[in-house]
């Protein structure tokens, strides 16, 4: 579904992503793990066109989207749940969702109903300002907002960031549920353990290059990953 070949991204003179290649098959969950500054967010931002790749190709459903504008890419069916939620604080939950459907011409009401069915909590808080929601609810809203554009591929940038463990579990359940309904997911996580458990494929990113890749279950067993990200071997 999504194929990235030899992607390079620079911020000025600094190279953030150095020639990575990865595949996201249809209806799968693929996760990208790595430490801070490894280039995970940059990869997502370049897929959705918020930063431009300096080299390489991003291919979505057989189409080269490398140089497309964000508006076009979103229309093609990719959305990003940005890091740190970034809900629109002073707008109501409903308005937030409607903005998510900005490029949709019709079916907005059904979409809203679908999101509310997935997150009953948001229905209760429909008129509340997004800024007054709890962290977990804001994350639900960020995911719901992304679902409003009926994406084929939804990319999530650290959805568990800053949330209590119990709520993190809830978020991961929702990710699985969204995937079950047929949406492909590209997930970035620092919580490598949880992410790899639900992922079909995992990639490990270190300072801009992919060092390890393989099915999620296998990566969980991998000694290098255990040492570096899961922190289980030292005990």
């Amino acid at each position, binding site marked *: 579904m999504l194929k990235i070949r030899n992607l390079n991204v620079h911020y000025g003179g600094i190279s953030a992503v150095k020639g990575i290649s990865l595949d996201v098959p249809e209806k799968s969950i693929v996760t990208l793990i790595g430490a801070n500054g490894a280039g995970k967010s940059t990869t997502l931002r370049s897929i*959705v066109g*918020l930063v431009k790749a300096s080299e390489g190709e991003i291919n979505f459903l057989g189409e080269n989207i490398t140089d497309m*504008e*964000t*508006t076009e*890419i*979103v*229309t093609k069916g990719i*959305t*990003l749940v*940005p890091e740190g939620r*970034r*809900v*629109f*604080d*002073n*707008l109501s939950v409903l*308005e937030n969702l*409607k*903005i*998510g459907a*900005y*490029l949709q011409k019709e079916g907005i009401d059904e979409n809203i109903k679908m999101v509310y069915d997935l997150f009953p909590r948001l229905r209760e808080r429909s*008129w509340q300002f997004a800024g007054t929601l709890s962290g977990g609810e804001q994350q639900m809203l960020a995911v719901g*907002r992304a679902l409003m*554009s009926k994406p084929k591929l939804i990319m999530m940038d650290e959805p568990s960031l800053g949330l209590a463990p119990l709520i993190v579990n809830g978020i991961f359940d929702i990710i699985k549920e969204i995937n079950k309904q047929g949406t492909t997911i590209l997930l970035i996580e620092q919580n490598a353990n949880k992410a790899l458990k639900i992922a079909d494929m995992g990639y490990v990113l270190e300072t801009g290059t992919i060092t390890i890749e393989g099915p999620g279950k296998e990566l969980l067993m991998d000694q290098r990953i255990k040492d570096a990200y899961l922190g289980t071997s030292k005990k």
Partner: protein
Amino acid sequence: MMINNNRKLMRRSLTVLIIIAFASIIILLDTKTIGDNYVRRILNLGAIYAIVSVSMNLVNGFTGLFSLGQAGFMAIGAFTVAVFTVPVELREAIFYIVPQNPLVANIELPFFVALILGGLLAALVSILIGMPVLRLKSDYLAIATLGFSEIIRIIFTNMKTITNGALGINRIPGIPTMWITFGVAIVSIIFIVLLINSSYGRAFKAIREDDIAAEAMGINLFKHKVISFAIGAFFAGIGGGLLASLLGTVDPKQFYFTMTYNFLLIIVLGGMGSVSGTIIGSFVVTAGLEYLRIFDEPLTVLGVNIPIFRAGFRMVIFSFLLMILVLFFRQGIMGQKELSWDMIEGWFKRRKGLPKKGKVDKGGTI
């Protein structure tokens, strides 16, 4: 359910009553049955300020662009109306130092055509300015737009063959009825409210709240910023044109950047991101500045002349009131809310000390 329906009916009829009352007051004022020219002037000015402030709020309060170019765009509208509506036969007397450029000297347009033309010219200039400037953010955008506003003014001061330079243009045909200012104000404000509630308006608000998230939703930031900026400039131009006609005279000095601060003051006072607040703010500020004139006149208490009561003292009082307002109502009069029946009922309930009902139904906005 019955009670709810009754309440809705009551609200609706009250709204209609208020509109009728408002219209009859304007009719009475307009036919000179009540009030005097002074009151009419203040109300006309308030309506014009409302147009410009609401349009500025669209840019600053709803789209989150800190733009201070309003005076420049008003100047464009004002001079367009001035240049094209002054009767041709009077022009020689007005342009007595440098004759008017023959290209425009013989063109006389009906008021509304000139008014719309002024708005369109302002919008066109705003798009040209916006292309480079809207890539900037917050303070930088404010400085750049302020600079362009001054450039427009200076260009007008020097285009002597068209604008008569610093002498300005007088004998602009006046506004015959209050319905012109109020009519244009109502139409403009309704247009802006509809825009704000459309998907464009949501995109504007999304850009204000978080431009990165808005962009990730597929909103074209630059396009929407330019649209908002141009619509803001269009209505500023319209407001400027009405002002020229109301005052009967324009000269570039009126459009100093201090004028923009008046509008900034109105939207901060009324509430950034609230249309009804801005309208209230416009009339409060216009009327306030006038009725505080009592502080400008000498005051004698018990035969002693109080020395601080002199010309300009009202501005001290006004500034003092503003400081109090900013200290205690940081969000302005309305914040980001709009005046609605829910809100008014809320005030009454609070005043009577009754507990507020848990669930409030939406709608019923005036």
